[in-house]
């Protein structure tokens, strides 16, 4: 890649030496032991057992062999499903990535009105579970009975349904409308905000226009967070499941993850072959780790230094056009599914306006004695994950990026590898972990087991998001604090935390959403006493109960809780953190002033 001269002038962040050899090693040992135990041991247990040839691991006695490995790769249609997964992923990523990057740049680097509100709306769209979103789009885009298709037919514009959600483009569209775009905007916007405006201003002073600055300065500077986000998406290539399953089965389109899910949901769950198929994601990690190590080692993209100067570009009338387009997208991403959810909760039966509206589903949910318990448990899990996880992940990321402690490679491997196994399989590993460990089995069946699981479950995304930020931040501020006599803890809380605050806020929200929506990872650990709202929604929307209206109400509660939590997080976060827009300057004016100065000099 051709390097921008502007970037070459950047100060390169240097790693701070390990805190102190003794204590640093001790901290690393503790972190490796704890994370290795809770994150990797369940995966290892699953992998070891994949050589247990018993058809039903829970019933038959153990016998060892390669049967599951042989059978798994002989499954009919396996190659086709692999190809289908790659196809869906590629089309989704090539569409969502440029859109996500463009929106993140507009929200963070331009003077678009209400940028923080728009960003927050993307958070909300992320909070809407993907199942109701997909159902909403089926309601609208079913080729024969979808409301949009019927509307077009009634208007005489088409003779047959124009859109078909049960198709490859339909699956891609549903993925984009689900979390495909919002997750990228959420992860990239804080990174774009962390960029020093003086670099862009310098480019403009040098005569570059906005677009040239974007491609020659901004995007190259953002390469590390973008590649980290890309790597995180790569991890999901064989895991994305729900939308593909719902929309693909009717037209005989199966993806790799559908195969894994089907094996687990067999009448006699075939965990052996499911583990074998899931382990292919570990190969992805073999690609991902060198890629992100390359990013970290280059570390030439420091964008926040002691002289950090945020600044926003004035796009003129394009500000409003961008605002309109993003708002329109947000209506599709957020308002649409939310309306379907809320409306559905009042409908006698979702999809049937003729049957009228009712409060009975609300009465049903609110009078359920389990509901209040589940609400309390969810709040506890969500709040714990929102507070503890970001801090923990930031410390792990700090160790990985800012120290030279031995064992960082292993730690990184732990963080990535544990994300390779889908939640529904990891749940079994965690069950074994909690019931099979003498010192830990007292936690089984209690809220503490769930707390540990939800705190750690967002680790791959969380640690890597924080790594991205640490890569961006220069060493000078930390060094200044340390030279002034501040200890590691003081430096961390007084220097790092305010700098990290936007990303910590983001992770707090993401972890709240992930904890409140956890199902696969905790289903084998939860009891009636520790039931969560997400498990309640799962039960209500299961085939046997099939009460999607009541499940919608639970989703509404989860979203409401998350929104309230996110507002609180933002309120405190914006006060505690560095305000990236406080000194926002009119970059256009600056450039013009610089140009006139230059002209005057000439």
């Amino acid at each position, binding site marked *: 890649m051709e390097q921008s001269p502007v970037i070459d002038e950047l100060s390169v962040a240097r790693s701070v030496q390990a805190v102190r050899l003794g204590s640093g090693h001790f901290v690393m040992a503790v972190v490796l032991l704890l994370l290795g135990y809770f994150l990797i041991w369940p995966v290892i247990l699953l992998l070891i057992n994949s050589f247990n040839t018993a058809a039903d691991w829970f019933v038959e006695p153990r016998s060892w062999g390669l049967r599951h490995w042989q059978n798994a790769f002989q499954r009919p249609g396996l190659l086709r499903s692999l190809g289908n997964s790659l196809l869906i992923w590629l089309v989704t990523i090539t569409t969502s990535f440029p859109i996500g990057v463009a929106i993140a740049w507009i929200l963070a680097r331009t003077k678009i009105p209400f940028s923080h509100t728009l960003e927050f709306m993307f958070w909300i769209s992320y909070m809407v579970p993907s199942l109701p979103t997909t159902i909403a789009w089926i309601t609208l885009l*079913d080729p024969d009975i979808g409301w949009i298709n019927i509307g077009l037919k009634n208007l005489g514009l088409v003779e047959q349904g124009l859109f078909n959600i049960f198709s490859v483009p339909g699956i891609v569209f549903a993925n984009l409308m689900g979390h495909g775009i919002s997750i990228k905007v959420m992860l990239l916007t804080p990174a774009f905000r962390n960029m020093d405006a003086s670099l862009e201003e310098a480019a403009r002073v040098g005569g570059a226009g906005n677009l040239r600055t974007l491609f020659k300065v901004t995007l190259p500077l953002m390469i590390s967070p973008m590649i980290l986000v890309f790597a995180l998406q790569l991890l999901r290539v064989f895991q994305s499941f729900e939308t593909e399953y719902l929309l693909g089965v009717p037209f005989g389109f199966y993806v790799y993850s559908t195969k894994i899910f089907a094996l687990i949901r067999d009448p006699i769950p075939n965990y052996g072959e499911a583990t074998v198929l899931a382990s292919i994601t570990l190969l992805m990690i073999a690609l991902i780790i060198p890629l992100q190590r390359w990013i970290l080692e280059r570390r030439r993209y420091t964008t926040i230094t002691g002289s950090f100067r945020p600044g926003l570009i004035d796009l003129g009338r394009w500000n409003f056009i961008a605002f309109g387009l993003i708002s329109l997208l947000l209506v599709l991403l957020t308002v649409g599914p939310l309306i379907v959810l809320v409306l559905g909760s009042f409908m006698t039966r979702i999809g049937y306006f003729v049957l009228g509206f009712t409060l009975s589903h609300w009465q049903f949910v609110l009078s359920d004695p389990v509901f209040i318990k589940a609400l309390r448990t969810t709040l506890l899990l969500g709040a714990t994950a929102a507070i503890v996880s970001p801090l923990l992940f930031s410390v792990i990321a700090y160790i990985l990026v800012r120290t030279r402690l031995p064992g960082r490679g292993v730690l990184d491997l732990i963080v990535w590898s544990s994300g390779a196994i889908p939640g529904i399989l990891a749940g079994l590993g965690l069950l074994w972990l909690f019931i099979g460990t003498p010192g830990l089995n007292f936690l089984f069946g209690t809220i503490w087991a769930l707390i540990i699981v939800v705190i750690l479950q967002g680790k791959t995304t969380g640690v890597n998001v924080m790594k991205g930020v640490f890569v961006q931040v220069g060493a000078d501020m930390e060094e200044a604090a340390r030279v002034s006599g501040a200890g590691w803890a003081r430096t961390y809380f007084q220097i790092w935390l305010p700098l990290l605050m936007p990303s910590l806020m983001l992770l707090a929200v993401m972890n709240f959403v992930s904890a409140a929506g956890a199902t696969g990872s905790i289903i084998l650990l939860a009891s009636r006493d520790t039931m969560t709202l997400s498990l309640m929604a799962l039960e209500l929307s299961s085939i046997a109960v099939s009460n999607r209206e009541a499940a919608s109400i639970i989703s509404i509660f989860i979203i409401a809780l998350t929104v309230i939590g996110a507002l609180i997080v933002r309120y405190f976060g914006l006060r505690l953190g560095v305000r990236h827009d406080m000194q926002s300057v009119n970059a256009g004016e600056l450039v013009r002033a610089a140009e006139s100065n230059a002209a005057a000099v000439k």
Partner: protein
Amino acid sequence: MTKFRENRKHSRSSRAANRVTEMLMIILSVPFVFSPMVYAASADFEQEWAKLIAAAKQEGKVAVASGGAPSRQYRPVVDVFQKKFGVTVEVSTGNATDTVNRVLAERKAGKYIMDVALISSRENNQRLVPSEALIPFAPLLIHPEVLDKSPWYGGRYWFSDKESKYAFIYHVSKEDRYETWYNTDKIKEAEITTIKKQADFFDPRWKGKIGGQGMGDPSGLRQMIDSYFEPDRGQKWVRTYLLDAGITFSDDRRILETWLTGGRFPLQAVATGSEDLIALAKKGIPIKQIFLPKQVALIRAGGSGCCISAFANTPHPNAAKLFVNWFLSKEGQTLTHTMIPNIDRSSLRNDIPLGEVVPEQRRVPGVEYGFPDADPKFGARQEEAQKWILKLWESRQK
């Protein structure tokens, strides 16, 4: 001779009279002879029952492994038990497979948490019995209403496992005809009446018009396993239905429902989610059911609401014993009929009101139904059919 005859006649009539008198005396004397015994038995039971209640209260809890709809449906029923005996009933969450996974993993690790299972015959036969997690059920029964077999269908107990001793069947669904649904806006009555037998669904005119439940859903799989054994359908029919009939499948019941009601796939050859469809039809949605004859009328023990079994090494043995006896008593079984709205199965007890049981599920008195799930050999055959169907289903994915 005539006198002799008369004498004989007289003596015969007097002997008959004597016999009647004897019989009457015996009948009349029964209460006097047996009442102390009955009284003693009743007093013994009352004593034993009171002791059991006290011991169960001491244990404080009974943990029930359940799955699917029953884990919710039984909540009001077990609430009555809790209030009556002061013993908490903890019913598991999640689907049956997850529940059994968890229970078996716990037991392998030496943790015995569950007392009773209210779970499907399949989970019992294929997983709980082979893993030796259960104990024989009949020895737990002490309640006179349960011990008396006469009110139970066929005057006996029914079990679903191959040894006929672990998984007690208490509820069954009735299948005496095939149910099919169609959209009345899209299919005319004259057209639908051309379907007389099961093979008629494969007529080319229906290609691309039928929606069906996928095998990712346990009830979809059960439908096909049942079809496999039915003389009207059979193996060949199942193969054609899954592979060659141009049927569009979904594992999501609500999607199937909207396909039918919206007319995208206006025919459901194998009815899915009938209770909901009946409710929708009553409210004016343009769908209608038709019934096709079935050669053999069956009762089936499927789903988690069919069978009760008891775990070995139970942590609350007395509470478990109290629960199973109460649950199978007239009171317990009556509550399952009266407290679960529109219940689509009925108790094998014949001496209780039918309450909320939907009309189609009420057994006709005097009719003898085939009961394959109670055949000890059926489990193994069912397992074979299941494997064959799943293989067929997966072959669609090529």
